[in-house]
């Protein structure tokens, strides 16, 4: 995984609450056998007309969204299915961070494994961000701070291990494989075998 320490970008805003992963990537796109190229599936049912043409009034299709790498989303973003295709699609589209007051557990875990930053902020900050689309923000992973346009910054939670992996591009599978001896010891010494 690539190292990530700073994400700096204008924001694009999708205020709806409880945006589930079926909206992020509809199930009909899950028959793929690779993670590549899922950007075209992102929010497909909201994004395209029946004939496949992009809807001009869907926020991600508008000029304001071009080049935005930070998505500000309503509470409980990413709920529902565990499909990792959801962060894959967001990343392939160009989104590198999601800011909300609540991010669903499995989506959060999947995002961190792929370098998509889940940034949870307080309600007041969130309300301001929803009302001010297109502002430039800086997400600083090392200090776990979200820098707002007026110079103020607010903290966001990030456990130290996830932070370490993001900053150092640590591959968690490699980390686990490194523990092979401990795993073998557990298998040999456990009280019962499954």
């Amino acid at each position: 995984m690539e190292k990530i320490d700073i994400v700096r970008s204008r924001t694009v805003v999708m205020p709806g609450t409880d945006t589930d992963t079926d909206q992020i990537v509809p199930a009909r796109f899950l028959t793929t056998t690779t993670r590549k190229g899922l950007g075209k599936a992102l929010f497909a049912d909201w994004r395209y007309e029946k004939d496949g043409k992009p809807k001009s009034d869907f926020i991600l299709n508008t000029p304001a969204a071009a080049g935005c790498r930070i998505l500000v989303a309503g509470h409980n973003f990413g709920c529902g299915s565990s499909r990792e295709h959801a962060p894959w699609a967001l990343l392939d589209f160009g989104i590198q961070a999601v800011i909300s007051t609540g991010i669903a557990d499995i989506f959060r875990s999947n995002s961190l494994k792929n370098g998509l930053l889940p940034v949870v902020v307080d309600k007041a900050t969130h309300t301001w961000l929803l009302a001010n689309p297109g502002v430039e923000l800086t997400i600083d992973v090392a200090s776990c701070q979200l820098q707002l346009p007026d110079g103020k910054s607010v903290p966001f939670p990030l456990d130290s291990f996830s932070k370490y992996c993001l900053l150092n591009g640590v591959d968690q599978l490699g980390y686990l494989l490194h523990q092979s001896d401990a795993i073998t010891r557990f298998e040999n010494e456990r009280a019962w075998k499954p």
Partner: protein
Amino acid sequence: MSGKSLFQKVWDDHIVVPESDDTPAILYIDLHLTHEVTTPEAFNVLRSRGLSIRRPDLTVATLDHSTPTVPIATLKDLDAVSEPAAAAQIRTMIENCKKNDIRMYGFGSDFRGIVHVIGPELGATQPGKTIVCGDSHTSTHGAFGALGFGIGTTEVGHVLATQCLLQRRPKTLAINIEGTLSRGVTAKDLILAIIGKIGVGGGTGHVIEYRGSTIRSLDMEQRMTICNMSIEAGARAGMIAPDDNTIQYLNGRPLAPKGADWDTAVARWRTLPSDADARFDSEVSIDASQLAPMVTFGTNPGMVVPITDAVPVSDDASFRKALAYMKVTAGKPMLGLPVDVVFVGSCTNSRLSDLYAAASIMRGRKVAKSVRMLVVPGSVQVQRQAEAAGLDKVFKEAGAEWREAGCSMCLGMNGDIALPGQLCVSTSNRNFEGRQGIGARSVLVSPLTAAASAIAGVVADPRPLLQN
């Protein structure tokens, strides 16, 4: 120091390396269930890194999500019926399992079916185990006092290569349920009521334990329905303590322990229920005796009311958007809404008792002419048992389609979809926009309510149709 909860006992029993301030715990996984949709990229990663599967013996595979619900005897049949991408994905799964010595309950197997139906049927799901799958309804297995939770494809790769996951200990939420369920009110209605009460984010960060006399009175299939939808409340997992029901269910199943091993296992299982003085991070109480059959009205499972109630009124923008999508009106009842499709199936409600329930309403009655009804058994075993009991005849004589096992219309990956604008009354677990087909509108209910609605041609209360 207080006693331990069921969750804590299972968690502590599987720590390979403990959690620290700087690092998550390494948690050992006893059973890895797999299916065709969330595995391909995981196998790709292992292959590209020259890694083998650490414990193929603890891995089980099936075909369910993309899989057609018509008879498939050969892969040629598959090509005739499936979209090319779905057929390719199924082939990929079959090859990956063959190359890696993973037991695959595929086409022609006596035990093929929806992954969360076959685990328990096989007796692979057992109390005290850690069980994962690249699927959020892995919470189903918590009905057995196992810790079952969904993972993403990257983590599927972690488990394949190391049989372990990096995890931080979640919080615990006790949901205490007392009182007897009224006639016509089922386990599905109970879990819908719970989600309605605590909300779709109410369980986030928590593992739920369902406790109380109501839970004790439920059989295993009913407990699976409850635990299945824990994820819809945002919870990581949902657990029910094992008891005599659990032990009786597992006795003699193909992958359950035998002989002296069985006795040892049962003795260990009996130590798992939460200690009397176990503490939980949060607690909620539910009076089951006050519940009615439930019906969703919106576009997430938390948007749910008793079937005789009106759709609530709210100014919230997301709420109003959901009602607009569903074409339902605040202040008006759900009862009487015209229905286009009825789906009985899914890992929530496709087991034998669910089919018996639907059949009890449909026996001697006909599906309304305006309705297409699909009844999809959860597995080959359920299908055979249902056919031996003549349930398939009840469904077919009523005018419903009786299909092969699979996830089917729960998420419409295999061609079983509702069409744009159609209202689908479904025994599945998600009513998100477009879940069952682009532009399709989903209403989640119990098998009884689904059957009653199929007969009436509109959303209908099952209670008047129940036999005396």
